[in-house]
C-alpha cells in the first residue's frame, strides 16, 4: 500500500497553494478529487504552456500541480452543485481550499457548519493572511505576501539600495511554502482522526508561513535579542559570501572560518594579497575594506573558471563553493539523475516530459506519479453518476 492510500480528499482549491497541497497528498497515494469550476481551474489559464497553444489542457502549471488527481467539473455555487457537494462531503476525509476569505462560508462550508454536519472532516483553508482578515490586506498576491512577511524587504542580501527590494524566485514561492505546512497539518490531523474520528479546521496564513521560514532571525528580533530597524541588511550576515560570475554562468561562495580561508589560498594562483589579512579575519576582523578586497580578487579568479569544475575542486578542499544552477543544470545534474528527481510523465495532450518530483525518498512508501493531471471533467461521470455522488 502507499502511505496515504484510502485517504479521500476533496480539493476545492483553484490556485497554486491549494493545488500543490493536494499534489503533495496525491503523490503519496491519497485519492484527490479536484472540483473544478465550469471552464476549469484558474491555474489552467497560466503558463508555462506546452507547445501548440494556450488552451486549458496545455497549461504546464496545471499539469505539474495536479498529477495523480481526479477532475470533476462542478459549479458548487449553484443549487444543484450544492447538493452534489454535500454528497461528496459525506464520502471524503479531507477538504482543501485556497479561495479568498469568505468563499467557504458562501458555499455553506464555514468551520462551524462543517463541524456540526461533518464532525469527522479535516478542513484546511489556505489564504494570504489567515481566516481573520484585516481590512488593509483583503487584496493580495504572492508578491505582496512575500513583502508583508519580511522576506521581500531583505531580498537580496547586501542590496544596492538604489534599486527596489525584489520578489521571491519564480511566481509562486509563498504558495509552495504554505502548501507544505498545510499538507503537514492535514496528515497530522488525519493521523489523530484515524484513532478518534474527529475532524479539524486548519487555518493556514501564507504570510505567517513565510515569516516562520525566517524563524531563526525573526524570533530573536521579537524577543529583543537582535536589533531591528529600517536597514535592508537587517537579516544579513557579514562577510564576502555571494554570487560571482564564472566563465559561463555563476557560482556561489560562502566563507566564514579560517578553514575556508586556508582552502581559498590553495585554490588561487595569486595569493600575495592574502598575506595582508589575518588568518582569522573572517571570524574576528571582517571589515568592509577586507570584504571588498577579497570580493575583488575572488571576482577576478572566478571569471576564468568553469562553475561545475571549480565547485568540485573547492569541495574537495573544504571550501564552500557551489554552482548557481539553472533549469537546464538541474535536469543534467548527476545527483538528480541518481535520485531520479525527474520523472517521465506522459500527458494525453502535452506529450511526454520530465517533471520535477519530490525531495524525499521513502524506503517503504515512495511518492510516485501514477497518472498525469486529469483533463477537465475527466472523472465527472465516475463521481456524479446519476446525480448520486
Amino acid at each position, binding site marked *: 500500500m502507499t502511505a496515504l492510500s484510502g485517504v479521500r480528499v476533496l480539493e476545492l482549491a483553484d490556485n497554486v497553494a491549494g493545488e500543490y497541497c493536494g499534489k503533495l497528498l496525491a503523490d503519496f497515494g491519497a485519492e484527490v478529487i479536484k472540483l473544478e469550476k465550469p471552464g476549469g481551474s484558474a491555474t489552467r489559464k497560466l503558463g508555462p504552456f506546452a507547445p501548440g497553444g494556450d488552451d486549458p489542457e496545455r497549461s504546464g502549471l496545471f499539469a505539474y500541480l495536479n498529477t495523480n488527481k481526479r477532475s470533476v467539473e462542478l459549479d458548487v455555487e449553484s443549487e444543484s452543485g450544492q447538493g452534489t457537494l454535500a454528497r461528496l462531503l459525506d464520502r471524503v476525509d479531507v477538504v482543501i481550499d485556497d479561495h479568498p476569505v469568505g468563499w467557504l462560508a458562501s458555499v455553506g462550508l464555514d468551520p462551524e457548519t462543517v463541524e456540526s454536519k461533518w464532525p469527522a472532516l479535516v478542513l484546511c483553508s489556505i489564504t494570504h493572511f489567515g481566516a481573520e482578515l484585516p481590512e488593509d490586506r483583503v487584496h493580495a498576491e504572492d508578491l505582496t505576501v512575500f513583502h508583508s512577511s519580511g522576506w521581500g524587504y531583505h531580498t537580496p542580501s547586501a542590496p544596492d539600495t538604489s534599486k527596489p527590494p525584489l520578489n521571491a524566485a519564480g511566481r509562486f514561492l509563498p504558495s509552495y511554502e504554505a502548501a507544505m505546512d498545510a499538507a503537514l497539518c492535514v*496528515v497530522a490531523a488525519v493521523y489523530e482522526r484515524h484513532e478518534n474520528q474527529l475532524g479539524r479546521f486548519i487555518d493556514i496564513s501564507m504570510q505567517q508561513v513565510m515569516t516562520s521560514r525566517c524563524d531563526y532571525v525573526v524570533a530573536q528580533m521579537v524577543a529583543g535579542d537582535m536589533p531591528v530597524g529600517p536597514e535592508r541588511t537587517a537579516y544579513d550576515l557579514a562577510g564576502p559570501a555571494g554570487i560571482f560570475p564564472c566563465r559561463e554562468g555563476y557560482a556561489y561562495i560562502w566563507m566564514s572560518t579560517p578553514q575556508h580561508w586556508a582552502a581559498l589560498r590553495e585554490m588561487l594562483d595569486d595569493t600575495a594579497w592574502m598575506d595582508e589579512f589575518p588568518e582569522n579575519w573572517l571570524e574576528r576582523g571582517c571589515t568592509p575594506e577586507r570584504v571588498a578586497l577579497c570580493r575583488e580578487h575572488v571576482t577576478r579568479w572566478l571569471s576564468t573558471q568553469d562553475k561545475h569544475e571549480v565547485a568540485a575542486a573547492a569541495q574537495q578542499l573544504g571550501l564552500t563553493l557551489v554552482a548557481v544552477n539553472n533549469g537546464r543544470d538541474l535536469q543534467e545534474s548527476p545527483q538528480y539523475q541518481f535520485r531520479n528527481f525527474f520523472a517521465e510523465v506522459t500527458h494525453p495532450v502535452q506529450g511526454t*516530459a520530465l517533471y520535477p518530483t519530490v*525531495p*524525499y525518498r521513502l524506503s517503504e512508501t515512495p511518492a510516485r506519479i501514477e497518472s498525469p493531471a486529469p483533463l477537465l471533467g475527466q472523472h465527472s461521470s465516475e463521481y456524479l453518476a446519476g446525480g448520486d455522488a
Partner: protein
Amino acid sequence: MSLKSRGGPLEGVRVLELTKVWAGPAVGKMFAYLGAEVIRIESEGSLDVTRTFGVDDINNAPGWQSVNPQKLSAQVNMKSEEGIELILDLAKHCDILVENLRPGAISRLGLGYERVREANPGIVYVSMGMWGSEGPLAYQTGYAPCFAALGGVSALVGHEPGSPAGMNTRYSDSSFGASASYAAMVALFHKRRTGVGQFVDVSAVECISTMIGDSIMDYALNGVVQDCVGNHHPEMSPHGVYPARNEEWVSIAVRSDAQWASLAECLGQPGLADDSRFRTLAGRKANEVELDRLVQEWTAGLNAMDVVAKLQKRGIAAAKSQSSLDLIADPHLWMRGFYRDVTDHAGRSKPTLGPSWEMSRAAEASDAAPALGQHNDYVFGEILGLSAEERERLQAAGITR
C-alpha cells in the same frame, strides 16, 4: 506517557533529534508544535553552535531559543560506545529519529539506519543532507544559501536578466525543515496503520527546486531556461515594488485590465486606462518600463501605507514592504498569536514565534527552549527506567554530560 500533556494531533508521539543548527531543529520544532514530545540530544563536548556563537550564557542563547521551543534536552556523549547504546535504548521508545549531521557522520557514530532499525524496527528515520544521503555529490556540504544556489532559486532573483543576486542569505533551512517534516509525518501515518517504519532520505537542494517547480516545467516542456525578471510577472502588470516617502517601499500587483483602470484613476490619469499602450496586459508588458515610471512617480510622493489604503479600497493587491521594525510590530501577527509569550526554564516570560498554522484543538505552545540537560532525569529515569545510582554513574563517567 509524556512529560507534559499538551493536546494536539500528535500527542503521544515521541521524536528523537540528533541535529545541528537550523534545518534539523526546524523538524523537531514543527513536531513539538503539533503536540509531539521532542527530545534533543546534546553534549557538553559538542554543543550546537547556536548555543555558543557570540553568546555568554549557553542556556539563554538567542539563536538556540529561536528554533528549539518546547523541546526537551538530554545530554549524551555520542563519542562513547556507552552513549551510543543509551541512544539506541532511547530510540526504542521513540517513533521518529531525525538527523542532519555532516554526510556519513551518523553512520560513523554507530547510529546509521540499519543499527537503529535493529533496535526499533518501527522507527521512522529521517536523514537530512544537502544532496540527500547517497549519490555522486552526496559528499558535498554547504549552508543554506548553497541549497538556494544549487536548487535553482538564486538564478531567478535579480534586477535584470543575467544578474542573479539570489534570495536573502537566510533562506532555505526552514523550508528544508518543513519538507522533511511533511515526509516524516507521512511515514509516521504509515507506521500507525501498519507498524512498519522506514528510511526517509531528504535532499535540501531538491526541496529548494520544488519552490520553483513551475519554472522548471518550462524547461521540461519547452526547453526554456528561465532567468531573473526583476519584479515583473508574465501574467500581471504592473507588478513591482515601488518607492514611497521616507525610503519606504510598497509592493503592487495588478491582475486585470479593470484593476489597471482603477490604478490609472489613482495615478490621477484615468485616460491611461484606454491608452493603447497600456489597455491590455500585452500592451502593459511591452511598455513596462514606462508603466513602472508612471506608477513610481505617484507612489514616491506618498507614505507606503497611504498607497496601500488607496489601492486596497479599489480592490488592488498592495502591501507595504515590511522592514524588520514593521514586521515585529505587525498587529495581525500578534493578534493571531503567532508572536506569543512562552515560559522559559527559569520561569520567565519571553516572546517568540508560535507555529505557522492555527487549528482547532491545537497543541498548547507555551514553553521556551530547554536549558542544557534540563530533562536528563525524565529521559534517563522515567523513559529508560535507570536508577538514580546508575544515572549518577553515567554522569560521573561523562556519558551523560
